[in-house]
């Protein structure tokens, strides 16, 4: 069969079309890692706590969202039909408002702030077959994460203390994330190849994801920092 094909090619001569036989793309490595930078905004659902007379977040900060910035590192533990990842994510978020005068409730010159340091320990699945086998530059993924969020309420730059109780703590919870990544490789395959050769970055992508975070802190009633929010960012796969 091969000899016949060769004879056909030789007989076709120089003016005819030559069929190029391209080797299949190399399989994706079974392990690797992802680095992501992300940002977003969210409003903690402080008012969801049972028994609250009013929402203190709205009282101090109004309807404004907290600005979030952070990063995530994921280890690709399994990579065959899609990829399973396990990782760690850390971020920072803050919001400032005016402390209120106790006498009148009017805003004072003193600044009050809520600062949170969200940590996530995600396990996820990326259905990257869409890109690696089908060439569709969209990769959907889901993650489930253990959440640990340090929080600190300050007034005048110091942790606020009320009746001897410090306004800081650690909340535990879980989170579910669904996202979609757009593979930037599709915009310039040659550049993507060069990037892989020169730096080891196999793929780069931008992504958008929706986060459903619940922080029941093991059933203990307290400050609720649960939220439903979007994050956006840039990711690199090594």
């Amino acid at each position, binding site marked *: 069969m091969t000899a016949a094909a060769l004879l056909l090619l030789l007989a076709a001569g120089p003016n005819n079309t030559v069929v190029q036989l391209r080797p299949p793309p190399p399989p994706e490595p079974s*392990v690797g890692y992802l680095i992501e930078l992300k940002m977003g905004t969210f409003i903690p659902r*402080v008012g969801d*706590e049972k*028994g*609250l*007379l*009013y*929402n*203190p*977040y709205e*009282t*101090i*900060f109004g309807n404004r969202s907290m600005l979030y910035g952070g990063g995530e590192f994921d*280890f690709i*533990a399994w990579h065959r039909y899609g990829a399973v990842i*396990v990782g760690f994510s850390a971020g920072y978020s803050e919001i400032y*408002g005016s*402390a*209120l*005068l*106790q*006498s009148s409730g009017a805003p*004072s*010159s*003193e600044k*009050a*702030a*809520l600062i949170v340091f969200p940590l996530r*320990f995600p396990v996820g699945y990326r259905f990257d077959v869409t890109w690696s086998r089908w060439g569709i530059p969209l990769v959907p993924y889901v993650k489930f994460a*253990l959440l*640990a969020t340090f929080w600190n*309420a*300050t*007034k*005048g730059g110091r942790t*606020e*203390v*009320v*009746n001897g*109780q*410090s*306004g*800081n*703590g*650690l*909340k*535990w919870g879980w989170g579910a994330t669904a996202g979609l990544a757009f593979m930037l490789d599709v915009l310039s395959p040659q550049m993507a190849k060069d990037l892989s050769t020169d730096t080891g970055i196999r793929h780069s992508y931008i992504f958008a994801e929706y986060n459903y975070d619940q922080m029941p*802190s*093991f059933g*203990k*009633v*307290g*400050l609720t920092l649960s939220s439903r929010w979007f994050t956006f960012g840039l990711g690199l796969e090594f």
Partner: protein
Amino acid sequence: MPSPHRVVLLAGLLLGAAASAQAISLNFVGSSPQVTTLARGPAGCNDQVRVAWTTTGLNASNACTSLQLWVTNSQSCGTQPGTASSDGGTDLIIGTFSLATQASGLANTFRVADMPGVVAAGGCSAIADIQNAVCSSVDFRAAGIGSTCGTLSAANLIVRYDTAPPASPTMFLLPQDSRIVVRLGNNDDNNVVNYLVQYAVEPPGGDLPSWTTLPQIPATVTSQSIDGLINGTTYVVQAFSLDEVGNQSAPSPQQTAVPQATNGFWAEYKAAGGHDTGGCSSSGAAVPSVISALGVLVALLWRRR
């Protein structure tokens, strides 16, 4: 065979090297680290100052005169001590040394009060910022025996007597919960190095305030907090600037402020009936357990790799 241009260039280089081989250096004795400007205020008017000198490449064979050291109030040192009023008055000679016997030594000790500039201004009580230079010079033969003498001088030290107070600081008060934040500015006076803040409960009638003085803060810190105040009480605050030698400005215009109780997010949360008690104890024993479990998980995954 070298060209004439090369010969001229070589001769120039050799002469330049010969000229730069002679030098005089001056240092203040006892200043650590070494400084080239010594500043004193009113409290240091009678301080003793001593200068050490060292020469390089000067000796009996090329020195035409003795080395002279003096303190001058003049704009420039010149080549020898001046006596004319145009020189800022009679310069203070602090030593004459023969380079035939020594290449380094100590000049005579002098008091800041004896410097020509301070004497001319009326002594220690003068309100001024006076800078006097320590000068030295010697005549020597740059081109060897038989050549004409030129003058080598050094004037790298300044002694400053400063009794002029800096400008009063600008001040702005922010009353807060149980405290007042004092915002300070140097009033465009770059000599200010420290601030001093005083506060007192506003006295009734025309009584004088009973001031409490806070520790000095550097002028790079433009905000100071007065803590532990009683909400609802009127406090009066004033501030001073201090310069490098401790001269204190006139007080800033006094201002009053009343600290008032405020609620931040945490106080509002508790006021709304929030159940959280704060602190990290809320995590309980779950923290180490979960972190340990995560550690085991990561280790297992890593082994698979």
